[in-house]
């Protein structure tokens, strides 16, 4: 909803009541972290945080487009695992070859989703569930169920390991550029508006003469491509293709999108708020690690899962309250 009044804060808030929560929470967590931990604002923490979370940001943004049309893409985690293996195999040819091929591989799965959903009319939840299993199986088959080391001699690992200005990893730079591009695409192009219109009402969009099928194909290809990119970052950051990674990523991405205020039923959504949602979920982990480091509490990995779930619960409660207050005011009809 960022149109001409995009940067009039009050109108932004009044139109996106459901995404205020994420911005407030993000600001609060960052303030908390800066005040409590010495190294929180340090270059090392910032760059490793951004590097790791760039994967989640890009798949969350891809996912948000799918969700804005009222669909869902459960395959992103497996697809990222698959493409990390593809990228690892292609790494000797350098990043300029490996990246596009891995992204294309991701789009291939996106295309498969689109085919199931548009041509065979299979509900997105089921279609992408199937692709998820297929991509996972595929990743294990092509990798022999083992990690595939990348070629350290080429420039492939720069993506995940080298930094611009000594602080920003290349991965977040690439992801950042793409995310800004997608933000513009959503707000400023017919394609972007059609994405939102389809989620608002697919029938109405068809009758309005919008290119519904093409747009739906686009969002699944986009989501697949984003997952492909995440796979490249994964392989270059860890120095290996990871066929067993990606489990539960789709749910993290969905959580980030929802935390960012996008309705799962589609029709509403914002790219920056989704990024904020992904950062927020990542920050919770980051802060838990710092707490561990301080030694004030000893939080095992298991507790982290519990806390992450509890955090999601808190955000949902908050959103439910904001939404119901708005409903009472008659704003969300």
């Amino acid at each position, binding site marked *: 909803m960022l149109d001409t009044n995009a940067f009039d804060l009050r109108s932004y808030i009044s139109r996106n009541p459901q995404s205020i929560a994420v911005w407030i929470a993000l600001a609060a967590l960052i303030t908390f972290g800066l005040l409590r931990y010495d190294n929180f604002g340090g270059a090392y923490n910032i760059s490793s945080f951004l590097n790791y979370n760039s994967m989640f940001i890009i798949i969350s943004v891809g996912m948000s487009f799918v969700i804005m049309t009222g669909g869902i893409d459960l395959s992103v985690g497996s697809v990222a695992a698959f493409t990390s293996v593809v990228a690892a195999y292609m790494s000797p040819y350098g990043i300029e070859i490996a990246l596009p091929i891995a992204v294309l591989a991701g789009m291939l799965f996106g295309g498969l989703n689109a085919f199931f959903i548009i041509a065979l009319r299979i509900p997105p939840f089921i279609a992408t569930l199937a692709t998820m299993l297929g991509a996972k199986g595929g990743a294990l088959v092509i990798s022999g169920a083992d990690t595939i080391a990348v070629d350290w001699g080429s420039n492939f690992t720069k993506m995940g390991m080298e930094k611009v200005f000594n602080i920003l990893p290349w991965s977040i730079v690439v992801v950042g550029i793409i995310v800004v591009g997608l933000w513009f695409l959503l707000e400023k*192009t017919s394609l972007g508006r059609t994405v939102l219109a389809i989620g608002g009402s697919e029938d109405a969009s068809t009758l309005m003469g919008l290119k519904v099928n093409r747009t739906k194909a686009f969002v699944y290809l986009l989501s697949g491509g984003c997952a492909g990119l995440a796979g490249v970052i994964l392989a270059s950051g860890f120095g290996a293709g990871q066929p067993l990674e990606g489990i539960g990523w789709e749910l993290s991405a969905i959580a980030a999108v929802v935390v960012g205020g996008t309705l799962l039923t589609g029709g509403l959504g914002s790219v920056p708020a989704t990024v904020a949602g992904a950062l927020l979920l990542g920050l919770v982990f980051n802060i838990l690690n710092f707490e561990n480091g301080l030694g004030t509490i000893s939080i095992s990995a298991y507790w982290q899962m519990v806390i992450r779930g509890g955090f999601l619960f808190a955000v949902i409660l908050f959103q439910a309250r904001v939404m119901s207050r708005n409903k009472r005011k008659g704003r969300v009809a």
Partner: protein
Amino acid sequence: MSAIQKAFNGVVALDGASLEIEKGEVHALIGQNGAGKSTLIKILTGVYRSDDGAVEFDGAESLISSPREAQAAGIATIYQELNLVPLRSVTENIVMGYEPKKLGVFIDWDEAHNRAREILKRFGIDIDVTARLGSFSTAIQQLVAIARAVSLDAKLVIMDEPTSSLDVSEVKVLFGVVRSLRDAGVSVLYVSHFLDELFEICDRVTTMRDGRTVDCRKMDGVTKLGLISGMLGRDSSEIAEAGMTEFSGGAAKHGEVLLHADNIATGPRLTKLDMTVHRGEIVGLGGLLGSGRTEAARALFGIDPLASGTVSLKGLDARLETPAAAIKAGIAFLTEDRKAEGIIPDMTVRENLTLALLPKLTRNGQIDRAREREIVQGFIEALGIKTAGMEQPIRELSGGNQQKVLLARWLAVEPELLILDEPTRGVDVGAKREIQAIIRDFVSKGFGVVLISSEFEELVEGADRIVVLNEGRSITELKNPGITEDILVHALAHTDGEAA
């Protein structure tokens, strides 16, 4: 000259329908539900494809195969169910698919908002075009749909029941727009159940029956009775004798007070309602759209909680906090939105019919299936529900028969008060009369009915009293016999003037 001709053969929905619309005329299309009007329109606009026959548009054969192509060719359609996207802004809904661009790619939002404002101004509407469409009333949304069609510079605008959710003043605005379209040489295909409107706005009328076009003539010299007889395929003198609705002639004696609503309010849309329903009485709720009619029904049925005021049933205080409580107290409510709130499409006629009755059909949690079948069979026969059997999914029934099943759902619980919100909307003329007869029969047994209807004729002839609502308040009451459509319109108009 631009003219359209079309003919189909071999399709069951449409069996040799042809239609000719001249440039710059307002052409009415009428027929009972299921006569094929919607199918015909959908073929014209590329939603469906015809099996046979030809469409000619603007002097050349047209091969329209999608809504997009239809729009490109200059055919714009306003569908009966609003086909807009409520979550998006007014501007988006108007310009979507045809956004003004900067540099050929980026949407020029300033220009888009201006364009939307300008078009709406022509309709006398001044609203915040950047706000979500869903935040406006149904009437405004309907006018936005029309604004979209106008903005596309269409040569032919198709309007399918455009006034079904508009009030009198909004209809006037709409007619003004239609006239200005006609004067600009645009053709309008106007589909409506409200026959009176046609005389006011249309030049010619085509009548459809059973998938065929049976008649096409000039509006001058046609009578309302003539139109109805054409739709029904019956002799007009027969109908004149029988009266226009099945209600006429049955004024029963009224008994004790059944329901009394004292000063009730639920929110900004229903601020003060006083009404009383006696046994054996049909009380109409008169008012324009947005006057609080439906809200009143929802309050009495326990859907919206009362903010203030009290409701008493048979002299006792009633606490109606949920539909379940209202049903227990002997109240039933037939919704105006059959599809969204009435039928469960995939369930059978039997399951739909007994849905509200279930608690009474159940012993220890188990449903008495023999009794269930017996009751359902009884209603199918008593109400003349046309179905292949009680195990047929309800979605396969026609609108009128679905409505009868829903009516039976409520009659089955043996309520003492039946609230009917637009009981005959979207139902063909034949079924309409049958439903009206059922209602009359119900009150004659000493029960009460609250009747909401947009059709003045149905209210005037059907109700024993009419409580007139305006802006969420009950302001006056009219008593039959003696109410005429004129009197009702004046009552509404008078209060309109007062409010302003």
